[in-house]
């Protein structure tokens, strides 16, 4: 269960998030949609305890992130697939995570297999990885502790079509097994194919939320999205 309760965040006088509230129940996959700069990443960083909200609270399994007893086992996060040391191998990145969590080393091999990185790829330094491989590694890192909630920021970026299908099936499977999955994206079609619920934000405010059917009723999700975010459109009228 992931909950945002009236979260606002002001950065140097600019309101990045404004009264954001929504819930991701266990066993569901929520797509977090919004144009670039809408506040998606800020919201996810607040959820992960990396940024402090100006007001309101975000909780995972009923607690603020910093109060979780063992965060790595309770919520898996992938906030930026680019935030990796280029000199470490993929296997080393996962080994460091497994050591911190106190997991046996065999878990590293299991996760590599789960995210489809071969032994050879795992031995390469991350600096040589494509963005898609970094995303797989980041998803693997998030899944190390078999968490009950999952927070992913733009995980489909850089994945090839096979990768996107793989991720869709993986995340659907996790949600079906009871995990609360929150997935941010600006790739509408990807989210449309996998999410149960949608939360749309623009300029820091929740513009709409509901089930896929509710938001897409009678027209495409894309049209709903474009209508709602029309005021953030950069193209000339």
């Amino acid at each position: 269960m992931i909950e945002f309760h009236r979260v606002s965040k002001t950065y140097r006088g600019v309101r990045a998030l404004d009264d954001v509230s929504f819930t991701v129940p266990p066993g569901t996959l929520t797509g977090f949609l919004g144009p670039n700069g809408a506040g998606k990443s800020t919201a996810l960083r607040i959820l992960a305890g990396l940024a402090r909200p100006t007001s309101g609270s975000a909780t995972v399994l009923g607690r603020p992130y910093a109060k979780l007893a063992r965060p790595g086992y309770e919520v898996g996060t992938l906030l930026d697939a680019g935030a990796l040391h280029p000199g470490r191998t993929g296997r080393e990145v996962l080994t460091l995570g497994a050591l911190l969590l106190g997991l046996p080393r065999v878990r590293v091999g299991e996760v590599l297999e789960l995210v489809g990185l071969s032994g050879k790829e795992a031995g390469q330094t991350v600096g040589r990885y494509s963005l898609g491989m970094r995303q797989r590694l980041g998803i693997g890192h998030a899944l190390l502790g078999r968490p009950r909630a999952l927070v992913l920021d733009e995980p489909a970026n850089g994945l090839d079509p096979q990768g996107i299908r793989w991720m869709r099936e993986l995340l659907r499977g996790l949600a079906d097994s009871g995990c609360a999955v929150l997935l941010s994206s600006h790739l509408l079609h990807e989210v449309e194919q996998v999410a149960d619920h949608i939360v749309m934000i623009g300029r820091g405010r929740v513009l709409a939320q509901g089930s896929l059917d509710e938001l897409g009723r009678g027209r495409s999700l894309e049209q709903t999205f474009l209508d709602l975010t029309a005021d953030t459109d950069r193209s000339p009228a």
Partner: protein
Amino acid sequence: MTTTTSGIPSRPRAAGASRGVPFGRLLRVETRKLFDTRGNLVLSAVLVVLSLALVVGRSVATGEARFFTLAGTAAIALGVLLPVLGVLTMTGEWSHRTALTTFTLEPRRARVPAAKCVAAVAAAVAVSLVALLVAALATAVRGGAADWTVDPLGLLGWIATMILVTGEGLALGLLLRNAPAAIVICLVSPMVWSFVAQLGTTGETLAAWLDLNATTNALMTADMTAVDAVRLATSALAWIVLPLAAGFVRVLRTDVR
């Protein structure tokens, strides 16, 4: 900060029970990070090889047979490179933004730089011991001419100096989070201080109290007066304690990006 041994997956969560990542585990991970990239390995290798080369070079070139003088030669390399090790230990987390994942696995953020400090200081002590061993070997080959005169306190002071210069690197690295800037400050400050010391009595006094290289000299030679001790404490406060404290506050207060 208590070190706990729990955190086993099956352990039930109880109110007030020890929780989170035990400090020993953090320490193990941060120690591993000192050696798990090619860049870090090269730095460690250069540290050892350079101090070895300086000691052997001096011994061969001048026939130096005094143990503590050879140790002092090794200190030339360590005094330059240990601060760099300290800086890179801290800044690595921010220059590649891995702080994002590190702090999600350990939300009690201050424990991460604390573990880095312990790991880097332990590495500095280990390298110092290796350097002393090399100096001892280079002395031993002189046979009867070997001069082993050394004040045990001087030896401790020698190691303490290596810890202090590492601490300077750690402190500036944590405060600035910018490796080039922190390294330049560490390397250029001896030059600046020797210049300041030439600017009349005020400059001389300033340097005598604030130049870590000058204040640690008394420590190295185990010839320390009360005034020397206060000067050492003052310079350590200025270059280690205060920047480290400010760096910890910055880690706790600012958002991680």
